[in-house]
């Protein structure tokens, strides 16, 4: 049942994306507002899907937060992107930024819902995952990833608007808020992950590919923050840093599954 609700949410995001594209092309604010309403409706459906899955894990006897496998992480990642866009982007994000955000969320959710390689089955947890740190660590990391996605979207928008000499003040504010939010959440995610590793494996850091790539992502965003503070007007440079950061986020999430390690989803 939860997979049907989540697939429907993906379709609603497609509708929101279409509205944002129309609003951006035709410069119709009313259409953009309708797009936001549809995106919020999609988020409500998405939240219901996650809640339903959580209930279903209990009914299946597994009884855990739906954050334990690749399917569940994709669903939560896409939810985080839209949720943070609603929280951070309200009054700041314009239709083109919104279009990018719902497109990312939609692609993630569609991949989870319609890809044959992602198993949506509810499975019981292995002993190492039976920890309160699971929720804290996964939630902070994925919210951090999502905030970085928003930072990239707003960074590209700011750079593009700066080149075309159009004002980008709301997007610049969104860039700063999402970059800082992502940095705080991701740093908390790394620290809670280290604490959990200390409990489960007896060491807080072991240079596992996931840990190494999390550090790479953190180093890149630390650099981006320094660039932003040192040269706030260098929009091209910050957009480049955010692009590299986003690539690193994607590799930290997807890429390391192809490297041997303790964090692999497959």
């Amino acid at each position, binding site marked *: 049942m939860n997979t049907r609700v989540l697939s429907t949410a993906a379709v609603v995001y497609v509708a929101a994306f279409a509205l944002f594209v129309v609003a951006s092309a035709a410069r119709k604010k009313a259409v953009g507002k309708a797009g936001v309403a549809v995106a919020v409706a999609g988020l409500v459906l998405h939240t219901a899907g996650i809640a339903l899955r959580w209930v279903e894990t209990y009914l299946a006897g597994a009884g855990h937060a739906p954050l334990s496998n690749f399917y569940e992480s994709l669903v939560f990642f896409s939810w985080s992107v839209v949720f943070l866009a609603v929280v951070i982007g309200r009054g700041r994000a314009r239709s083109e930024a919104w279009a990018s955000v719902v497109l990312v969320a939609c692609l993630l959710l569609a991949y989870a819902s319609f890809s044959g390689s992602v198993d949506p089955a509810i499975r019981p947890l292995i*002993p190492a995952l039976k920890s309160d740190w699971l929720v804290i660590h996964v939630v902070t990391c994925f919210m951090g990833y999502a905030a970085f996605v928003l930072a990239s979207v707003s960074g590209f928008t700011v750079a593009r608007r700066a080149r075309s000499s159009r004002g980008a003040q709301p997007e610049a504010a969104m860039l700063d808020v999402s970059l800082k939010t992502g940095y705080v959440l991701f740093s908390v995610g790394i620290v809670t992950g280290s604490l959990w590793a200390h*409990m489960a494996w007896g060491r807080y850091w072991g240079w596992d590919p996931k840990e190494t790539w999390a550090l790479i992502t953190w180093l890149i965003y630390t650099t981006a923050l320094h660039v932003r503070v040192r040269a706030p007007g260098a929009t091209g440079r910050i957009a480049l840093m955010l692009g590299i950061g986003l690539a690193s986020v994607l590799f930290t999430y997807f890429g390391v599954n192809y490297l041997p390690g303790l964090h692999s989803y497959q």
Partner: protein
Amino acid sequence: MRQGAVETKGSWRARLIRVLVSVRVTEAFLLLLAVLCVAATVIPQTPYRPGDGLAIPVRAVMSVSLRDVFHSLWFLGASVFLAVSCVACMVFRFSARRTGAVSAVSGRVIPVAGSGTPPVVDSLRKILPPAYRIDARHDRDGLVAVCERGRIRRLAPYAIHGGVVLVVAGALLAFAGFKGTIALTEGGMKSAATLLGGTVMPLGFGVRSEGFSVERYPDGMPREYSAEVSFVKDGRRPVRRVLRVNHPVLVEGILFSLSGFDETHEAVIAVMGPRGARRFTVGEGSVVDVDGVLRVRVVRVEQDMMRMGPCVRLVPVGGDEEDDLWLFGRIERIESVHPGITRSVRRFDPSRYPGYTFVLEGIRPSYITVLGVNRDPGVWLVATGACLFLAGIGLGFLVVHERVTVRIDTAAPAIRTAVVSRTVNGSAVPVDDGLLRVLKEGGGGRS
């Protein structure tokens, strides 16, 4: 992060400080560390182990190669540089604040009629929210009133950079510790850990397995497992602890965690010999000393050998492999299907060794407890650094430091001017018109 001007004298010391507090250099080193980490996941790593016994020149070459990135001079050097740079930034920031270089007043100039302290402060109190702390004082140029809220945010850079320094220092201290594993058979005891690369590290006390239990899901996957372990030190009562996944125990400064288990089987063998019957419970690799005369090694334990039931392969210690005995639990049944097999195939004969008859009474599952063993003297430093860093970014990103500075030139005889400036998180922002109006109207007219 650098704020304010750096001493620009041409001395080597000034140049070094400029490099250390330079944000551009810091960015370069952060990216260098990122690139080295990428290299470590792309290039197959062959970490150096003390047990490898490499010659010093080979070890030196290895320390500058990318075969062991995380122990290379490049990685350690860049990490130490960043830590030193953080310290330099903190010192520079602190000294700049003390000398007042950061808080120079420049801003909007407005005319005021007077300069008395109480009216100015009263006006500021009237217009600014109660969270502002107002500090007014006279100096040789006139009256200066500094109004601030969120002053605690000024600690953020110190906490962030100090946190990074502690994490790097703690991580370097880990080199003084060790990391390894201990594999314990049920009832077995060990007093040394096997480090990566095979080096054996004595612990100074014994670790004994008192039992292991595993609960399983219907599909056979482990649901939960735990090991009961005793820590035995000479002259002291053994300390008994239960280890579960995600619940490590700290003993004598060493952290023991339940990192896994191996499943194996033990055979129960009875031997009838000249001195009577004896029973042994043995696993693969064990030696059965029957009576001091006959000694056999257990080479293999099988639950079901080619659908002929449980079986154990024994080889006499010091003897030929050809003199082995395949001891089957259901030898009578095999004999009934293949009459005379124990006579034609000598290695199937339980009485192969003259004067002794072996009986395989059964095979039962046995578990090997695998413990992670880690002594890390820097772990508390890293934990403190991480907490400090998180507190720092929390302060830096969540707290807003706002400052309104008003300077009134009291030396002017008639028309006095006030310089009003406002900063938010160190950046100049326009001053509210309401504040300026209140200052103009009541900032000094009644002095």
